[in-house]
């Protein structure tokens, strides 16, 4: 089971309902989903895998997603990861636009996210 064909997508989202919707949309795009409901879990997961895409919520219960973004940009094994910022704070989104690959302002449409994920699928 360690061999898997599908690329990994990391979803960092504290709201469980949104997490379920994002999981459904990205899974439909053909990804294997890793889910982190807080920053600590996200750091743990990032230490053991290199996701193809990372859907990152900036507003987390144990800290700002900005730290995770900075970590991703500093760590060598994540240099190919595509970061999709997902936030409701447009000012914050503006500030981090340069360091991320995509910025989605909440609410994110199910089909929009699915289509984007499909587009970003490695080799796909």
């Amino acid at each position, binding site marked *: 089971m360690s061999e898997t064909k599908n690329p990994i997508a990391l979803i960092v989202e504290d*709201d469980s*309902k*949104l997490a379920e*919707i*994002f999981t*459904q*949309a990205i899974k*439909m795009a053909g990804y294997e989903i890793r889910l982190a409901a807080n920053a600590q879990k996200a750091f743990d997961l990032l230490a053991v895998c290199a996701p193809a895409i990372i859907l990152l919520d900036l*507003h987390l219960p144990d800290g700002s997603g900005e730290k995770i973004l900075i970590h991703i940009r500093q760590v060598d094994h994540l240099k190919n990861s595509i970061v999709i910022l997902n936030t*409701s*704070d*447009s*000012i914050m989104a*503006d500030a981090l*636009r340069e360091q991320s690959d995509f910025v989605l*302002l*909440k*609410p*994110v*449409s*199910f*089909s929009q996210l699915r289509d984007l994920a499909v587009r970003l699928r490695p080799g796909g």
Partner: protein
Amino acid sequence: MTVAFSIYIIFLAAGIIISAFMVTRLWAIRKTAGAYQLVWAIFCVTVWSFGYIFEIASESSFYKIAWMKVEYIGIPFISLAIFSFTLIYSGRGQWLTRTRLGLLAIIPTVTFLLAATNEFHHLLWSTIAMPSPLFGPVAVGHGAWYNVNVAYSYGLVLLATYFLISLAASGHNLYRSQAIIMITGMVIPWIGNFIYMVGLNPVPTLDWTPLAFTLTLVAFEIGFARFGLMDILPIAQSSAFNAMRDGIIVVDGRGRIVEINPSGQNIFQQRADQMIGKHVQEIFPEWTSWSSETATAFETSQEFVYGDAPAQRTFNLRNTPIMDRRGRITGHMAILTDITDQKFAQAQMRLQATALEAAENGIVITDDKGNIQWSNKAFTHLTGYAREEAIGKNPRILKSFKQPVEYYQDLWQTVLSGKVWRGELINRRKDGSDYYEEMTITPLVQANGAITNFIAIKQDITSRRMAEEQLRQAHEEALQANRMKTQLLASVSHDLRTPLGAIMGYSEMIQKEILGPVNPDQRNAASEILDSSNQLLAFVNNLIGQAQIETGKIILRPELFKPDELVDGVRSIVGFMVKKKGLEFRSEIAPELSGQIKGDSYWLKQVLLNLVNNALKFTESGSVTVRIFKPDGSHWSIQVEDTGIGIPPEAQKTVFEAFRQVEGRARGGSGLGLAIVSQLITLMDGKVQLESEVGKGSAFTVTLPLLGL
């Protein structure tokens, strides 16, 4: 006879001793006018007496005649000396010039010379008969010149008597009694002469005249010296009287004007001769106290006004009774002092004092140490300290200790260097409450640089300061409220978007049958949920946009985008609504713009969505058309045209105002959409135009500059 002659010699010798004594007394007061003339007269009489003693006592006719000649060193000049003295003493001294004195001295000088040379011409003495025995006076016959000398002497002595009498008649009490004493002395030689003339002389050959003149001069000397007022001669008194700046009027006991000085004549604009002799009531009715009989009211004073308006003057009248030596009132003297200027100055000072007292500002005057000397009513009102309490205290009693020590140091440094200090103080009233005052301190600097006083003018600015404070607080509160509003909007944004995300996500999943098959009604229900969510989202975005514009936090990020993607994005949001209302959604994109345009696609999408939402809201049938085109070489436009109810002309100006809806167009909505469009387009250096006709439809056209690629 010998006995009589011997007694007479004793008298003469006594007269010489008295004369010597008089001269020593007069020497002390020799600077008094007339003193030298009196000494001269005494000298002449003394020479006569001296010569006469030896004339009588000599036992040889040669010596008797020689001593007779010595007597004539004095005899001819006695009358001239007495005349000169009375002339000067009665104030006529200026008449006696050297020339006149020289002319008057001719006759006595000739007499003296003729006496010395009588044996050659006998003009003075026609005969000389020696007494027998020789102890006794020589008997002489009168020559022609003898009578000239007598006439001359009588003439001058008569004039001298006249001077003394006129002085006694017109002068002051004191001088009058002096003059009377002198006149008495003057009478003695006349009596002696009368006795001699009528032949009542008990010793016919004996001449009493030197003794009589000695007594005359004693009287003169007493009159001249006894009162000890030698420095103030009648003339001096008269000069003073004439030179006085105050007007002086003298009336007698019956109220007749007897004297008025030049200043007095000036006041009444009449000459002395027009007034003297008239009753005081005619000239000066204001003087009512002239008839006062009470000597205790030695000086009474009253004020009176004289003259007409422009030249009107105010005088102070001092009434002084004039008393004789027994203390009886014989007349009155009025001294009139012009106090017009003084009164004016006093009135000015009163006016200034009243103004200072009545001033609205608190005024404090301190000495050079800062101790309060005076304060006004407003100061009491301001501080609660009455003037009586404040006087003598230092203004530091007002200190509230709410300002740093340096502030007061600066104040003192400024005023002690002679400069004006202006500033605001927080002071404490007597009751302990604090107040704000604006103060100006002006040091009063003398010509030598010394500061004598400080004048502080204070204004209560408490209410102004309170108002400023309230305004500042209100401003602070408004800023706080604004910050809270921004904060609130940020939370609302987050808290709305997250659940909206769930609603829209699940709705879409149902609609797209991700969660399993749905029937058409269920799919329609999901679409309705999505559409409503989109409306809600548009509103939330507008609210956030408005807040960001208001707080200046909006950032425009122009980037390349495809116009058809912009239109398609909006189309997908409004698609369900268009279909539901049975409308047609058309888009016409000019071919030259179909590639890429530069602009902030996020906010441009908001602009287009708002315009389309607005069009759909007011259109029940027909179509909504979106056009993107180039009106000219440097601009591009987005036009949204509908076939709705249109906007009446009077409302067209207000449609872009926030939270405002045109009457009759209320279709649910905040009225925020068009306001955001207008503000965003302004920020993008563009403009919005509206063309509309009621019943036909509206067309909103946004025109923006084409940004370089």
